[in-house]
């Protein structure tokens, strides 16, 4: 195979790889800011232990932010489909913060990223 031909194929393959990389990194989850992401991480530990989280508990789980901020971020997370609120079967005044399908996908993707980073 001539040098020009090899160079052409190499250039084409480089383009293909770069395009695939860009397509793969297209955003598929709602953008979370640092506080929302931190809140989700804290909730995830509790969910992992099957511990229910009430909205009131969720609002004080991050001591570094005010309850007003926490409440605002809970509303934002709900709007983005990253959490849902379930009513208590005994007491309608109590609401639990629960993960959604998108939350599970989000953590699965983070897990895959960690796996990929470990492989490198």
């Amino acid at each position: 195979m001539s040098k020009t031909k090899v160079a052409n194929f190499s250039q084409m393959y480089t383009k293909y790889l770069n395009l695939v990389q860009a397509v793969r990194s297209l955003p598929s989850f709602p953008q979370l800011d640092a506080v929302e992401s931190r809140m989700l991480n804290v909730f995830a530990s509790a969910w992992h232990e099957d511990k229910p989280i009430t909205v009131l508990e969720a609002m004080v789980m991050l001591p570094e932010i005010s309850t007003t901020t926490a409440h605002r971020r809970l509303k934002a997370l709900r709007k983005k489909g990253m959490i849902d609120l379930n009513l208590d079967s005994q007491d309608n005044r109590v609401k639990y913060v629960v993960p959604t399908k998108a939350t599970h996908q989000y953590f699965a993707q983070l897990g895959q990223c960690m796996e990929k980073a470990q492989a490198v």
Partner: protein
Amino acid sequence: MQLQKNLWVVAMTALAYVGLLSFNQFIFSSLNASASSSLVFLPSGLRLICVLLFVEWGSLGMALGALLVGLGQAYSEDPITVVGAAVLSGMSPLLARALCLRCAAFDENLQGLTASCLLRMTVAFAAVSALLHQLWLAARGQDGDVWGGLALHFTGNLLGTLVVLYSAKLVLDRLPQSSRG
């Protein structure tokens, strides 16, 4: 030999364009807004990908595909309009690529092409394509409502490209790690 390879690229991209356009018409026929615009125009995504990978040969293939389809459809009574629209079909993604290259977002080998850059290019391409097509159709007296047609063309191109890109992402995400590019 190089010319033969490039002609092969032109033929394949033209064929893929015709195939995807037929598929698009089959799937979205109920959403068709006018003879020339579809609310979700899947071949737009193919046009962008082909031009990014094969540049002018991809553009030529897209123009040839559009010409083949156009001659058999809407404006067959006006071959000049068909030829012009086909040339614009191939040229608009090339123009969007040139615009993004000018902004130094990525180089000729797509080095530095990020997801946000790809999305910006998608919007630029949809706008350039819609504008050029609508101007051409207006100049040929084919479409009365220029602004309505412009909005439809832009929406169709944008949604079609996004559907193709996200379908590609879905497939790539489901591929086993070892076979990913």
